[in-house]
């Protein structure tokens, strides 16, 4: 239905079809305009006024809120437009705590970048003096209201992705602030720590709580043995910080970099993703047989777990009792590494996990998982750490991780994309039921990470039994499904939930992906490519998994497996600020 329509940008004729706004047409034409509040995955807000352009006969317009029209003559860099943008930046900077050199976002901050690009070296306005308290009350996210420019990206992310609106605008006029309910700390409202707010924040107002220094201390402490585990989706994103493309698999390079930094042993969370599948598939088949606690809800996503505990404690019985892959590997390492490696004891081991996720920091701090994972670094933090060690990842020779907890199947690596856990689980469940491998290993209906794939319903025939799977990403979609379940409007056997749109490849701890919606897909494709190329594509085929069961765990859901690999959940609504309701 694409009628051929064109408009002119800086004199160049550009064709457009169904672009939602002029800004996207400008980008398509190869030009760029500065933006602070615009994020293509969120609704247009028109708050920052930085994307203004001049249109013949229409004057100054903000390009993010203007629909494209045939025949428009748009200029993106006139003197008038540049003067307006400069004034906007100056006004924003006047209300902004400009301690750039000591800011966590330094080098990754849009406001800093544009101030530099527009040559703002001197401000006519006096800086606001009153400083508001910084909220670092939780393990994942730091909120510094003194750096907020009120662009509303975080408010929209919280509401449009998670349907949760923990952050909102409060007060009016010059007193306006973005804050949780009544200015509380994030830890005392029902924030799930997904980190999407900080991922879309253009300034240092919302940042990841950095634990890099803690890890440097451990690495440099001779008495401490450091073990690392690396989550599936980190490998297809980290390269971006070193000039590689989204989706390029850098696991080999990362192994080398971590060894160079001084980590003692490097393992792979993909190994324990396979382990999760063995346990979860077995658990699912048990529930299917007994007809109890169905549908089974996946439990890999810590933001989803916290959401269930704080919002739907009456449905906790549906959650898989399996720990997440991070949660499984850490205790296994602490238990078994001393048996395989000399000089390693339960007391001198520290486990550091590298995750695409800010909520994993909060997961590691859970009472139920205490002293298992010692530090969680996000993709963003490990990129910083590698850079500060003077290492250029792209120049390294790839190497392998440390046996026997580093091999993985293709099923494990696709955990990083929405739908991956369900696909991986079904591959193994099919085998457990039928004793033969699934023929069509690629269950492509389960894939897709774009905006239109946030809910997927798939039916798989397991020798006569139709297994129905619902896959959702974002908690907003999850909430819809939970309501349907409560009202008896839908039924299925497995519910996979990832809180971040598209899954972990777009996690709140990943490298920046908020300005280009194609990055999610490229990273996911990187995972599916690795899945196709690996010698084993089913979790039960992983030789190291077989070995772990043969020598230690005996069988899935065994007593020992329950001790190490399963957990429990509790009603956190009771401790919530909504308890009195």
């Amino acid at each position, binding site marked *: 239905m694409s009628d051929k329509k064109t408009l002119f940008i800086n004199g160049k004729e550009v064709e457009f079809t169904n672009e939602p706004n002029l800004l996207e047409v400008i980008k398509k034409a190869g030009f760029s305009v500065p933006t602070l509040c615009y994020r293509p995955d969120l609704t247009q807000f028109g708050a920052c006024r930085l994307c203004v352009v001049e249109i013949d006969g229409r004057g100054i317009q903000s390009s993010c809120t203007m629909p494209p029209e045939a025949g428009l003559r748009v200029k993106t860099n006139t003197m008038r437009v540049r003067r307006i943008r400069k004034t906007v930046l100056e006004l924003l900077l006047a209300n902004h705590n400009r301690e750039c050199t000591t800011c966590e976002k330094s080098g990754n901050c849009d406001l800093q970048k544009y101030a530099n690009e527009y040559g703002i070296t001197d401000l006519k306005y006096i800086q606001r003096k009153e400083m508001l308290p910084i909220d670092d009350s939780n393990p994942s996210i730091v909120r510094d209201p003194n750096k907020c420019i009120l662009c509303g990206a975080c408010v929209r992310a919280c*509401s449009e992705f998670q349907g*949760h*609106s*923990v*952050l*909102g*605008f*409060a*007060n*009016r006029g010059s007193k306006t602030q973005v*804050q*949780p*309910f*009544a200015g*509380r700390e994030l830890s*005392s*409202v029902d924030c799930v720590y997904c980190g999407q707010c900080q991922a879309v924040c253009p300034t240092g107002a919302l940042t990841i709580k950095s634990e890099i220094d803690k890890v440097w201390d451990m690495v440099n402490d001779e008495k401490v043995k450091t073990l690392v585990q690396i989550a599936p989706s980190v490998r297809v994103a980290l390269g971006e910080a070193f000039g590689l493309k989204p989706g390029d698999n850098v696991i080999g390079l990362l192994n080398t970099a971590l060894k160079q930094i001084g980590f003692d042993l490097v393992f792979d969370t993909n190994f324990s993703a396979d382990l999760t599948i063995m346990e979860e598939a077995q658990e699912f088949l048990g529930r299917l047989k007994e007809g109890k606690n169905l549908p089974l809800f996946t439990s890999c996503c810590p933001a989803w777990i916290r959401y269930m505990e704080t919002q739907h404690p009456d449905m906790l019985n549906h959650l898989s009792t399996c720990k997440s892959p991070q949660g499984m590997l850490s205790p296994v390492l602490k238990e078994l590494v001393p048996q395989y490696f000399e000089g390693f004891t339960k007391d001198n081991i520290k486990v550091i996990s590298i995750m695409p996720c800010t909520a994993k920091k909060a997961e590691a701090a859970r009472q139920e998982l205490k002293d298992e994972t010692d530090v969680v670094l996000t993709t963003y933090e490990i990129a910083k750490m590698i850079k500060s060690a003077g290492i250029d990842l792209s120049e390294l020779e790839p190497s392998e991780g440390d046996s026997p907890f580093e091999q993985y199947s293709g099923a494990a690596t696709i955990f990083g994309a929405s739908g991956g856990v369900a696909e991986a689980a079904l591959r193994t469940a099919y085998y457990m039921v039928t004793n033969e491998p699934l023929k069509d290993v690629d269950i492509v209906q389960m894939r897709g990470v774009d905006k239109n794939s946030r809910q997927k319903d798939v039916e798989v025939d397991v020798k006569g039994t139709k297994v129905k799977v619902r896959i959702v990403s974002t908690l907003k979609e999850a909430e819809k499904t939970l309501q349907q379940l409560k009202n008896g409007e839908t039924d299925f056997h497995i519910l996979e939930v990832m809180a971040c749109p598209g899954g972990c490849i777009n996690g709140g701890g990943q490298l920046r992906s908020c300005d280009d919606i194609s990055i999610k897909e490229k990273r996911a494709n990187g995972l599916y490519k690795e899945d196709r190329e690996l010698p084993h594509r089913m979790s039960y085929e992983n030789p190291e998994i077989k070995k772990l069961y043969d020598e230690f765990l005996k069988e899935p859901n065994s007593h020992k497996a329950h001790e190490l690999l399963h957990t429990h959940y509790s009603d956190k609504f009771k401790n919530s*600020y*909504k308890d*009195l*309701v």
Partner: protein
Amino acid sequence: MGLQTQSQNAIDFKLIDSILRDYEYKKSNLIAILQKVQEKYRYLPEEALTYIGTKIEGVSPATVYGVATFYAQFSLEPKGKYEVKVCDGTACHVRGSMPVLNALRSILNLKEGKYTSQDGLFTVETVSCLGACGLAPVMVINEKVYPQMTEDAVKIIIDTIIKEEKEG
């Protein structure tokens, strides 16, 4: 957590529920709901805002708080039994609304930042225009309009109310 405030027990959630029911738990009725709640309590208690944010689909406590703090008509602090509004629109200002306000403040021992009297009887605020410029300077106490105010008139009005209150 800052929840264990003295007002916690004072909130009657059944009452708020009935208001919510009257307005069909609708997001589009949020302002009307808040007005009703404020009518009952003379302010919007935090617990009530949380409750409303939890019960109405599509809003959260944070968004309800946003609405409650956006509009000047809503107060998050307990208001006095008598809400005194002194108009400080252009006409009233020119005709001497400031001396009226200052007189009120000195009688009730109030200042900028402290708007409610110690005994909880009066809250004194300024408003931008009451739309009664012909009567300037105007003062309104709980819906009742007092035209052409002077410092002396204010003293008589307040004293009368205090006397009435004492006599019950």
